[in-house]
């Protein structure tokens, strides 16, 4: 593990974060936007684990942050999908452009 420098792992997580951001910018379907958010959250988790392993191996703080992020991501995905299914029932579309009245 020690042959790979920390900056290469950070390259991976940064690239994954911006891939998720690209998906968030270009997609207009709510479920695919949710998938992009999952990619972004995973890149943050990789960061926490890598920092914990490389810089502070005497602690477990990064592990706990990762566990709580995964927990909250699961709750967030479940609530978002409930909202999407309810929106599909009333609008017959899950495109964000068709849900404009939620803004006001």
């Amino acid at each position, binding site marked *: 593990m020690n042959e*790979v420098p920390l*900056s290469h792992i950070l390259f991976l997580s*940064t690239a994954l974060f911006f891939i998720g951001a690209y998906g968030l910018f270009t997609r207009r379907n709510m479920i695919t936007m949710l998938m992009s958010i999952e990619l972004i959250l*995973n890149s943050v988790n990789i960061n926490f684990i890598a920092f914990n*392993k490389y810089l502070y191996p005497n602690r477990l*703080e990064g592990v*706990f942050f990762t566990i709580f992020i995964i927990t909250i991501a699961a709750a967030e995905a479940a609530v978002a*999908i409930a909202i999407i299914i309810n929106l599909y029932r009333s609008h017959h579309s899950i495109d964000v452009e068709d849900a404009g009245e939620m803004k006001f």
Partner: protein
Amino acid sequence: MSASAIIFYCLAAFILGTGLLAVTTWKIFRSAIWLLFSLTGIAGLYFWLQMEFIAAVQIIVYVGGIVVLIIFSLFLTQASGKEMPKPPAGRMIFSALAVITGFALTYLLIHQHAFLPARQPAIEASVANIGTQMLSTTEHGYLLPFELASMLLLAAMIGCIVIAIKIKPEEK
């Protein structure tokens, strides 16, 4: 280059390639499957970093839970073989430009920063250590966030049922 480094670069290429396919393919079901591969690759990365517990949690919660939930909701709301409408070309070009600029700026900062190597002795991230620290009430214990997370999960569960419940029309 040792075998460990080769495994890391293969995993990184796998994660980035499947992640990129997940956000660029225009068939929505394929996008979900590419996301599944990407999350599995991240679990492999955690195994590579010797964080077995986090890797197991990643597989159970993300791969087994969230992606399955996403695929269920795809089948409930979409014709899964259909292609999604493409956004206007201007939006794709400008978001690609914004993303590449942001990535270059961030990686420049990371590249210039000198990370100090760790001097302290490492402790093992075993399930016993994680569990002891998570349920302890001392200075570095995580009992309060643990309890709050359980309340959040309960609230999310009730909220999902309330939001997604189907109200039957009154029978007359």
